[in-house]
């Protein structure tokens, strides 16, 4: 068995370990991206890929179980798990339902206001919770409100998906790819928000304006006159308000986490511990059942698979081809990365793509290339690219499935968001936000190139 750990980055040569790890990576990713075709759950595919990578790595001498465990970014896994637990405690209180119905009541039949307020609520929660969770919570509530108003829920559901995808790009914890990027590049919460907040805000405004134009006809109809009472179904008022307090403290701690020398997961874990004591009536078994273990296992396995290609130096090898282009014109490299990441995110899945890009960028950085703005380009691309198709993000898939089930139940196919409808109404929004982000990156390139840490 040949060990390749001592190879110099400048003397990279295509060899057997690289080929083996590359094949395993490509086959695993292909299996994940074609889940809809073969119907094998993506986590099962990732599990198999990880197992094969570890075994092959041991046979060909580039990987082993110890290195596999070291490859896992536990910051991402623990943070996601903690946030899932927090949400599982908050949902039964009825607080999200109260917010949705208060918005429906306040809007008093003014449909654009309803869209704007629901979109804002979804975005605000997406800043702290991952956008998939936010859409899963608000999606069914939006359907209920629209049924009560006797209006088609499609504009509001599409708005929820698009605005949560867009808004989630703004913070370190708003989206799993952001967590992965922030963890790998050691970017703290404040730096992430300062860099991304502005571009996301402008993109968000543009999305809202675009939706008003796209759904002009639907927003002009007169809904049924309904009165929604927001207070009556806060089933557990004290837990809801206390959990909002915990979230507030978590935001402050996220802002301070770098100063405290804490990774982001520590803040989330402390929040989770607090919630368990605040929600005294909650049973741990019931809450922890809601933690999506398949998703967490998916991340674990992805890190193991990517760790394998890292240790074989395959991704570094790929990076050597990209490096001259990056050195030559960093701004163009950022824009190309943003759009490639967006289209990959729209077509397949942003998480594996992010997982694969991170070692490539880190490899270039180790080679002395300045890659700071590339991190932001990657975050924007994978985040906003998800709006491109109905499969671009898990939130989109959930919304589409929700509308299909609604259409089946009501016997009205017009209630379903079809792939064609998404191309007509969602994809233009993705192109618009990406174009805006390109211009902002170009104009403020020096700002995006500022060092990530003060000492640099």
């Amino acid at each position: 068995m040949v060990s390749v750990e001592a190879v110099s980055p400048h003397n990279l040569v295509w060899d057997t370990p690289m080929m083996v790890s590359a094949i395993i990576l490509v086959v695993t990713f292909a299996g994940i991206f074609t889940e809809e075709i073969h119907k094998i759950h993506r986590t099962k595919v990732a599990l198999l890929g990880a197992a094969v990578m570890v075994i092959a790595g041991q046979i060909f001498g580039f990987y082993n179980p110890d290195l596999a465990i070291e490859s896992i970014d536990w910051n991402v896994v623990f943070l996601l798990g903690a946030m899932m637990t927090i949400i599982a405690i908050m949902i039964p209180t009825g607080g999200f339902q109260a917010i949705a119905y208060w918005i429906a009541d306040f809007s008093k039949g003014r449909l654009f206001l309803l869209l704007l307020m629901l979109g804002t609520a979804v975005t605000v929660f997406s800043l702290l919770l991952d956008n998939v969770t936010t859409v899963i919570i608000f999606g069914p509530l939006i359907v209920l409100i629209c049924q009560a108003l006797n209006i088609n829920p499609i504009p509001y559901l599409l708005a929820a998906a698009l605005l949560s995808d867009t808004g989630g790009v703004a913070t370190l914890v708003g989206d799993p790819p952001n967590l992965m990027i922030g963890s790998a590049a050691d970017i703290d919460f404040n730096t992430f928000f300062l860099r991304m907040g502005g571009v996301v805000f402008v993109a968000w405004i543009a999305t809202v304006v675009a939706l008003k134009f796209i759904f002009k006809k639907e927003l002009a109809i007169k809904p049924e006159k309904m009165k929604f009472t927001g207070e009556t179904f806060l089933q557990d008022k004290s837990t809801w308000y206390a959990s909002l307090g915990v979230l507030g403290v978590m935001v402050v701690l996220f802002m301070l986490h770098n100063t405290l020398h804490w990774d982001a997961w520590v803040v989330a874990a402390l929040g989770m511990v607090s919630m368990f004591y605040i929600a005294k009536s909650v049973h741990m078994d019931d809450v922890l059942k809601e933690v999506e273990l398949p998703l967490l296992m998916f991340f674990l396995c992805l890190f193991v698979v990517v760790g394998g290609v890292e240790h074989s130096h395959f991704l570094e090898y790929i990076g050597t081809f990209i490096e001259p282009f990056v050195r030559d014109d960093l701004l163009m490299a950022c824009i190309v990365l943003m759009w490639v990441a967006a289209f990959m995110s729209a077509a397949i899945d942003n998480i594996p793509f992010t997982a694969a890009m991170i070692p490539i960028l880190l490899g270039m950085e180790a080679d002395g290339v300045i890659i700071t703005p590339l991190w932001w380009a990657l975050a924007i691309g994978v985040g906003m690219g998800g709006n491109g198709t109905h499969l671009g993000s898990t939130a989109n898939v959930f919304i589409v499935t929700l509308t299909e089930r609604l259409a089946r139940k009501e016997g009205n196919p017009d209630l379903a968001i079809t792939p064609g409808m998404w191309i007509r109404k969602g994809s233009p929004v993705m192109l618009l936000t990406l174009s805006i982000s390109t211009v902002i990156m170009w104009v403020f390139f020096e700002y995006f190139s500022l060092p990530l840490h003060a000492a640099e």
Partner: protein
Amino acid sequence: MPCGDAMITEVISARSDQTVAEVLALFEEHNIRGLPVVDKDNNLVGVYNFKHMLMDLMPFPVDEKLKRIHILDMNLDHIAGGKPWVERQLTKLLDKKMSDVMIKEPHYAHESTSLREGIRLLVKYGSPIVVVKKDSMEVVGVVSSQSIVKDLRSLNVSVNKGA
């Protein structure tokens, strides 16, 4: 005791082409809350009960087992004004055929199935549990919560007498 001893043999059933309105009338007339749906040879093709009908009256997605949101107890006592909800849903439901709304692959038992298994099926899948012949799906009876009550009482009496 087998299910064959605890079942009702005079079965009220419906056909696939009957409407929800007609079945609702059967529920009221015979004071039942569920029935098997059969074909022209009296073979079981589905089951429909009152709970299914009530679920169909619920707005989507209240009755859906959706990821994470299923732990939210969606309160519907929040709307005032507008056309009453239940009436609106009922108007759509009453004309639907049994073939569109019934449970298509129902759980069933045989005459020799033990009563404790019958009770387990009742608890897990709801009433009625249809009893069919072993070598075909021909309906011979139903085990329902109503039919069980009498037999549970007679069981209790015989246990006490034995003690």
